[in-house]
């Protein structure tokens, strides 16, 4: 009999078992430990609400709207559920799968498949999903910008954090699939606006019933923020501007508060934030006119004749010219072997006339007398060529030529270059915000302000205006200031469009030549003349002449008056 063999057979079987156990428990032990951990621990995230954005009078610029979002429980989602979703959400199965793939964190939690259901649809789905726990309709808060295009450049928009950003921001508590502000205030103070998500860690049994609460962290809402913007001005300005490409910036002259900042063509931040209408989004992103570009701070242009204010102030301050002294304008001036033109034949002009009529010949002469070095030095004092330091992202510094760096680059500075810079042409580049700040100096009689747009992060410190005295003689500033008024009131003044019955405006136009394209149009100014409440800059890209800018400014000021904003 094979009695002993029987024992050997079982010894073999038992050794095989021991080997199997060694493999499962020792070699793969960690793997199964993790699986058992994920079996009984569930994390239920809880989202806070993002801080809202108000204008200076507490009107909502960025709100949080209740949004019905559809989630699906992947563990229970079968073909029937998928076709149910496809039918009721009105999107194809492929699209549903794409959304699931994009939003998937873990298979244990419901995955977002559709954002922003209509109320009717939300109830319909919820009703049908009553006996199907695979489909969940959840109430979320979604960002809404009631003024859409008028405010979008200032507010920015929200979107899921990009891969390149996440590597940078990982250490600051951001994680993948976080929603983050792009551009404008949303980006500038994202860390204050963003909510801190919390959640509870729960021990569950096999049926998913809660056994114990292992940990809880309350979600923290973001901080509300108050801007310096006057939304009524903002909307009126945008309405005046929206036919053109360009931007309008309005500052409160004494403080540097940004009352208005619009850029055209605009875009609707709601479309980008919702992220649903792919066609419209790509239209915004690929527009030839660079819709996302905030032309007020992120682009710079030759300031043209508006720069004459700087040259004039500089000449007066350096005592290079008296108020009585005149130059005769014959329509052009020959410097070297080149003719430098004027917009007209102005005849005998003193400084005030030349500013009012924007006479180039006068300023060619004046510039040559004062010298490039002094002009550039004055432009430095007006803070051209450097960022204003406004609390918005993507500000550019513009460009101010420097004699020193020109020398280092072996570029010669010719008298013609001096003539050019005297009328704000050449290499000089200025952003509309810089131009607005420049004109606010004349509005407030010689004080330099630092523009800011965030008035207060509620629950934190208030921003206080940063005002410094500019070391120009008061007389020089006041002279140029009154000349600006004459540009409006003189029958020949370039800004005479703005000569309004019930508002005293002062201004300076500029027509910037840009190679082969049509000229840009500028108007900088302030109003009311005696006690300025606003300092404004209207800039239009490639419109041909400053006339159109004065038209836009006029339309804007008229609607300001109509709404009692001034």
């Amino acid at each position, binding site marked *: *009999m*094979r*009695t*002993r*063999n*029987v*024992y050997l*057979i*079982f*010894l073999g*079987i*038992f050794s*095989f*078992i*021991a080997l*199997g*156990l*060694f493999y*499962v*428990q*020792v070699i*793969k*032990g*960690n*793997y*199964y*430990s993790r*699986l*058992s*951990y994920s*079996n*009984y621990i569930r994390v239920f995230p809880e989202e806070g609400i993002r801080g809202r954005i108000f204008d200076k009078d507490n009107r909502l610029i960025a709100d949080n709207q209740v949004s019905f979002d559809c989630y699906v429980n992947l*563990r229970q989602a079968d073909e029937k559920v998928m076709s149910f979703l496809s039918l009721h959400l009105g999107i194809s199965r492929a699209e549903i799968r794409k959304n699931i793939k994009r939003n998937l964190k873990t298979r244990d939690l419901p995955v977002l498949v559709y954002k922003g259901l209509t109320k009717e649809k939300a109830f319909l789905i919820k009703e049908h999903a009553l006996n199907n726990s695979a489909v969940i309709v959840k109430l979320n808060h979604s960002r809404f910008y009631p003024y859409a295009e008028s405010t979008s450049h200032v507010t920015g928009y929200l979107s899921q954090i990009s891969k390149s950003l996440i590597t940078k921001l990982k250490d600051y508590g951001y994680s993948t699939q976080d929603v983050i502000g792009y551009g404008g205030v949303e980006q500038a103070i994202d860390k204050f606006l963003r909510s801190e998500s919390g959640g509870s860690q729960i*021990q*569950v*049994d*096999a*049926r998913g019933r809660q*056994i114990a609460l292992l940990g809880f962290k309350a979600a923290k809402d973001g901080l509300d923020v108050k801007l310096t913007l006057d939304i009524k001005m903002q909307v009126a300005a945008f309405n005046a501007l929206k036919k053109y490409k360009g931007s309008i910036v309005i500052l409160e002259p004494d403080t540097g508060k940004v009352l208005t900042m619009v850029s055209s063509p605009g875009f609707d931040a709601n479309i980008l934030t919702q992220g649903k209408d792919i066609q419209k989004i790509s239209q915004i992103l690929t527009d030839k006119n660079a819709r996302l570009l905030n032309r007020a701070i992120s682009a710079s242009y030759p300031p043209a004749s508006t720069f004459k204010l700087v040259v004039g102030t500089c000449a007066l301050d350096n005592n290079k010219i008296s108020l009585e002294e005149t130059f005769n304008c014959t329509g052009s001036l020959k410097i070297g072997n080149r003719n430098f033109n004027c917009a007209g034949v102005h005849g005998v002009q003193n400084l005030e006339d030349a500013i009012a009529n924007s006479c180039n010949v006068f300023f060619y002469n004046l510039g040559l007398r004062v010298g490039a070095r002094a002009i550039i030095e004055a432009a430095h004092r007006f803070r051209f060529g450097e960022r204003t330091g406004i609390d918005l992202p993507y500000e550019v510094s513009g460009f101010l030529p420097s004699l020193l760096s020109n020398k280092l680059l072996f570029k010669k500075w010719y008298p013609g270059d001096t003539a050019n810079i005297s009328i704000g042409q050449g290499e000089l580049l200025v952003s509309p915000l810089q131009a607005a700040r420049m004109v606010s100096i004349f509005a407030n009689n010689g004080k330099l302000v630092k523009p800011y747009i965030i008035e207060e992060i509620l629950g934190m410190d208030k921003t206080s205006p940063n005002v410094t005295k500019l070391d120009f003689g008061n007389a020089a500033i006041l002279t140029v200031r009154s000349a600006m008024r004459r540009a409006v009131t003189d029958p020949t003044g370039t800004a005479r469009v703005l000569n309004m019955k019930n508002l005293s405006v002062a201004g300076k136009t500029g027509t910037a030549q840009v190679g082969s394209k049509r000229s840009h149009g500028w108007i900088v100014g302030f109003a009311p003349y005696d006690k300025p409440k606003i300092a404004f800059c209207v800039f239009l890209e490639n419109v041909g002449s400053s006339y159109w800018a004065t038209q836009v400014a006029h339309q804007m000021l008229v609607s300001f008056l109509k709404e009692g904003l001034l």
Partner: protein
Amino acid sequence: MKKSLSIVFIPVIICLIGIFSIYTNTYLNNGFDSRSLSLIEKISSFFGTLVGKQVIWLLVSLSAYWLVSLIYYRRLYDAAYFLYGFLLILLIFVFVLGIVRLGAQRWLKMGFLNFQPSEFAKLCIVLVMARYFDYRKLGNVQLFELDFVNGFILPFIIVIIPCFLIAKQPDLGSAIIVFLVFISIIYAKDFPMKWFLLFAGLFLLVFPFVWSLLEEYQRQRLLVFVNPNIDPLGAGYTVIQSKIAVGSGGLFGKGWLSGTQSQLHFLPEAHTDFIFATWAEERGFFGSTILILFYALLIKSIVDVAVRSRDSFAKLICIGIASMFGFQIGINILMTIGLSPVVGLPLPFMSYGGSSLLISFISLGIVSNIKSNL
């Protein structure tokens, strides 16, 4: 008396391990606070729990063991065919009851006790086969040789009838064990290898037929064994969860009452068929190795009796009982780590359940008597 104790010592230890594991799986369930109860109430409520019932079954089984160990085993020679007839009656009764009640029937209600005839069948087939192959039947002819019909076909038919009835209950696991016991007895009885091959060929021929006889869920389980992930929430769920339980125990285990898989009921049948996973989760690789060592020692001590006995009938009984335990242990543990299909089989001495425990100790009683008559 001392000799008989050595056989029963290890099984009792395994039983205690089993009772601790049953406690682990069930203690969360009795939600009441037992501190406020009087002693009598405490005792009575204890015996109402699964642990209490298992303790009672252990005591009953030990008494049965003691009684059986006093009966001269040769008496079983005479009783074997009578017991076989009794078994067939029981199985047919269960079978008919199953048809009448339109559902699975594994238990016979006998007063307050439920009895599983399929457990009895395992021991019964051991006895019947031991008698059938006892060569002394033909008057001590030492060189007696059975031909293929007498040595295989006939006993095969004897075994396959109860096997079929048990598989139809449906209790595939027990049917397989009964059949494997038959195989090991004919193997021990020097069954020629060429017959084995012939038999294997035959099995392959009839396999499609057997497959069609299986219940849908049994087929599903066998398919899931090949790949548990085809149905992770259905038939594959048990295997996946028990693998997680065993694996997450790691080297030293999660500790007493700390097995999350069993405590939170991720592991189905954690106190019956999958009780090994409970133990392995709490005690880790060390605990499970020790348990397997115990089982190995138990089987060795039974086979030792077979080796030392000079009575062919006694030898075959011991081999049959050893393989009855051995195959159940082997298949049960292998299925908890996904190396064998899930067929409903208790782990001897560990799993909750009276029938299995009682039959196991009665079997040990027989071995004990053989040992005392060496």
